[in-house]
């Protein structure tokens, strides 16, 4: 068996180069996840002492209908936000390609402005827009003789209302990434297709769509993961209500963290979310990869 010889100066340098990030990562990511895992099997606090209860906290979480409801809400957020963002981004990106300067540069910056704002600020703006009596949206509705809508207080509309805020805040980034993907498709492909007599739809189907598959896949995964974990927007706009219709999984965990008198339940639910996201992202990743390899 041949032993790989490592040049000692490289190894020494690597240790120095990796040390700070390694230490920080271990301290603030790896150790905490193990702490969460172990704490999730305990009940109690450091006043009464801790008792090992095995999976009992997990059982409590899994038998809580509100836990499953929060998952459902998480998926609802994804369904409301992600497809719309992807489709709108595609059309916007296609539009931007066709624009002339300086409009093209201006629009790129303008659509990105919402993306740099914090969730709290976006939530505050939209909360004000949606305000029942004096918000801009209801005022506009009044002008058109439509009844005021309790956007954030009606369980039928609250999720969509939060979703719209989220789409507004994220669309710029998704569009710009999509734009990058579209620009990467070599123009010759389109020319070749034209020569072959393809129409617009065929060009889209056979040139554009395959061309943006990578970018689309990246966006799908990252949007799914981040949308599922949406927290700051509903936290400030609705606090999870009404009737928990905007309470996603992270909101659920935070609520238990706030009100439970001990932490075992909170830890267990946070571990379950981590598990779910890990499994879900690798599933989506596999799905996307397999469809990529089919080409």
């Amino acid at each position: 068996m041949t032993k790989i010889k490592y040049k000692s100066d490289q190894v020494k340098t690597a240790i120095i180069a990796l040390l700070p990030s390694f230490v920080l990562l271990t301290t603030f990511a790896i150790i905490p996840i193990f702490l969460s895992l172990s704490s999730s099997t305990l009940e109690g606090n450091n006043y009464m002492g801790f008792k090992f209860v095995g999976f009992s906290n997990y059982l409590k979480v899994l038998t809580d209908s509100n836990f499953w409801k929060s998952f459902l809400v998480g998926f609802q957020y994804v369904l409301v936000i992600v497809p719309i963002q992807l489709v709108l981004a595609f059309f916007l990106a296609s539009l931007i390609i066709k624009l002339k300067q300086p409009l093209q540069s201006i629009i790129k910056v303008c659509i990105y402005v919402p993306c740099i704002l914090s969730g709290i600020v976006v939530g505050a703006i939209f909360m004000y827009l949606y305000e029942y009596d004096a918000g801009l949206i209801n005022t506009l509705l009044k002008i058109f003789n439509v009844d005021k809508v309790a956007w954030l207080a009606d369980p039928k509309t609250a999720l969509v209302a939060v979703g719209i805020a989220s789409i507004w805040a994220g669309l710029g980034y998704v569009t710009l990434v999509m734009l990058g993907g579209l620009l990467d498709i070599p123009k010759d492909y389109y020319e070749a297709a034209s020569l072959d007599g393809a129409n617009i739809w065929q060009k889209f189907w056979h040139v554009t769509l395959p061309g943006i598959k990578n970018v689309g896949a990246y966006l799908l995964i990252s949007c799914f993961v981040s949308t599922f974990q949406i927290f700051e927007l509903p936290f400030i706009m609705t606090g999870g209500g009404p009737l928990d219709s905007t309470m996603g999984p992270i909101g659920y965990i935070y609520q238990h963290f706030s009100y439970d008198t001990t932490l075992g339940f909170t830890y267990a639910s946070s571990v379950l979310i981590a598990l779910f996201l890990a499994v879900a992202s690798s599933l989506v990743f596999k799905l996307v990869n397999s469809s990529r390899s089919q080409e």
Partner: protein
Amino acid sequence: MNKKVKNIIFSFIAILVIIISLFPLFWMFISGFKAKTEIIATPFKFFPDTWDLSNYLGLLTGKTNSIFFPRGANFLTSMGLTLLISLVAVVLSILINSLAAYAFARLDFPFKKTAWLYYLITMFIPSISILISATQVTKFLGLTNTLPALILPGVVYVWSIFFYRQFFLNIPRSLEEAALIDGCNRLQIFFKIYVPMSGTPFVIMGISVFQGFWNAFIWPTIVMKNPQFMQVNQLIAYFRSSQGIEWHMLMASSALASIPLIVLLIIFQKKIMEGIRISGMK
């Protein structure tokens, strides 16, 4: 269809999109000028009757008339502090992450694959799962309620290590080999060759890190109780309490907090656009 007509239609739609993107922000800024009695009063007024500076001034001078604003906190100081923290975080982040990226891109060492996996895995841990235990670690290190506690946990940004590594892989090895012959050690090569060339990725990632720290909310909320050290977004959230919402302060403080980010965007727009384009390519 006529090319010119098409152009006009596209430009029109583009302008519509720009308005939709910017209007809510504009609305937030104007609303900050409305007095408490005006802001949710009916009948509705688009522009404030009187352009009341007291909300903005109150935040900047520390004399807010707010019921909910924490005693001992000062919004202007908080902006300054959040700025300082974000800048320090950016410097540390660039330094520490690029060093790691260099190791993975150009150095050979045992367990390299395992180490890479170790780093990668942390990208898949949702922050909520480590939030509370991280406070325990913070306490263990004696950092509760201190400024380092606000900075250190967020410094390592594995995505940026990815990004830098990709960039470093594209730097020709010949430069390195020449320097080695000249007698430089690997670390000197990093600082003398790789770093000066990395202006673009550093700026791109730096801005992303800055944004993350400036906009931080959950972590400061659970780890910083001292009102003198609270971060801006943490303070803004106080205006929206279950006991009532102070809309005028909410709008004014949100507006103030957004200004630095908008300024950054305008200054660095080219690099930011470039960064987004690259990030999608992986």
